[in-house]
């Protein structure tokens, strides 16, 4: 079995798995799910790292790889953090009971 045919199998199965994994998502989770999936797509940083590791002494290639890595990590770090921030908002259960009894804040 050739390498290509196998890589295509991996592609096919990964796609099928992706299709199956997302079932019924309640609308409130659409944005966090979108943003979480987006963070995962920053996995392309693996390719950036590979590029750097293969660059040898070629400065242009190194710079290109580093730029690519920066973009990817921006996506990954920002994506996961922002998703977490959102999800924290959604699940803040009854922790505000007290705050609702606080003195009204001065309006801005």
């Amino acid at each position, binding site marked *: 079995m050739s390498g290509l045919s196998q890589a295509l199998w991996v592609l096919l199965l990964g796609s*099928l798995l992706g299709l199956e994994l997302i079932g019924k998502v309640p609308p409130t989770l659409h944005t966090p799910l*979108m943003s*979480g999936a987006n963070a995962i797509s920053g996995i*392309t940083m693996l390719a950036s790292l590979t590029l750097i590791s293969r660059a040898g002494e070629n400065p242009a290639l190194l710079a290109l790889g580093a730029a690519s890595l920066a973009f990817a990590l921006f996506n990954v770090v920002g994506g996961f953090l922002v998703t977490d921030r959102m999800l924290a908002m959604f699940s*803040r259960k009854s922790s505000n009971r007290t705050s609702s009894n606080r003195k009204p804040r001065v309006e801005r």
Partner: protein
Amino acid sequence: MTLSTALAWAIDLLAVLLLALGLKGLSKVRSARSANGLAALAMGLAVLGLLIQQPLSAVAWLWIVIGSAVGGLAGLVMARRVPMTAMPETVALFNGCGGMASLLVALGVALFGAGEAGLVEGISIVISVFVGAITFTGSLVAMGKLQGWIDTPGWTQSQVRHGVNIALAVAALVGAFSLPADPAGAGLWLLLLAASLLGIGVTLPIGGADMPVVISLLNSYSGVAAAAAGFVVGSPLLIVAGAMVGAAGLILTQVMCTAMNRSLLNVLFGGALGGGGGGPVGGGGDEAGYTRITSCSAEECALALENAERVVFVPGYGLAVAQAQHALRELAKLLEANGTEVTYAIHPVAGRMPGHMNVLLAEADVPYEQLVEMDAINPEFPRTDVVIVLGANDVVNPDAKTDSSSPLYGMPVLEVDQARQVFVVKRSLGAGYAGIKNALFELPQTAMVFGDAKVVLNGLASELRDLGFGKKTAA
């Protein structure tokens, strides 16, 4: 298989497992937050697996540290700073950068031949560049439109745009086919340029309100770009993860379309929709066609509130635009201090992004228990004294239930017409996202309170204070 290869392989395997679990968990309320952490952990593992396997020179490490520091820090700051309500544009920006990363890798391999030069690699490079460029420019345009920086030019609403986009696609194809002969030549640049312009040309005509769908689609594309990059550098992990995200993004896009009662084709090729969709300051539109409208002042509304025992607020897109969530919270506190029962009716697609209202009200410290989902609150309306609709329109349109010719027909709505008295706060008789009339406004129990949501809410609060509300708590 050496030990380190075996170890790296096991790590990769674990990473994919965790990624799958993460994606799955993200679609359920309970597990969503920990699933997000799981996915982040998986990414870390994947990087670890790679670093174990590939020996790196000191120079390489230097560049890696620089790149990581810049990207990571920027991401961190951005994620902390950005206001909750600007989530869709933030996700768009992140997403565009992901596409750019795949694009840069493919460019590097193509220009400097840092990979094998087979047909598969060639095709993968083309796909990476093409999809990566579209993702990048498309996401930036989406962000610009959501921020109100970019308008929808007139010509993009005509049929001309289809011609332009087809021409761009053909140009990209020409570039792609000339690649094998000369991987680092003009063909590459033609492909890059045409794809970048295509990303703009496709996204520009779409109304700002449809942007969440577009971003989700572009997100799916960036998964595809990552998978293609996986073929370029020969990493099965990358292929799997990219394919998974690509497919999951596609499903999510479909689910989102269904939730807002539109078809994907319509979103992509139908042009901008509705008056309020152009940008966050949108609104206005066709005011004709209403008869029998009752309008009233904030004072009258305040009187009704004074006598009400059960009040339900229905926030919508207009509340978000007016940034009136804090004003709303203050008003609610006055009422609660007076013993009035206050709840908020949350429609799943109120606003311009899914979950918009939850996020908005959570930001204003509204207690979580007072946010009631549509299915739970609909049976409560008949025993509600006063409903105040705040910059919401489509999500309270009774035609969605009764009029099968309405574009909203079939979308579940908040049945506020069942309540004893309804006040609708908006600036005019302008239409909402769907651009249609709202039969609610003409019902006998409905009164319009015209004005900006924030102004009206502040007005109501001061009227109530004049009526002696809030004295006790203020003391």
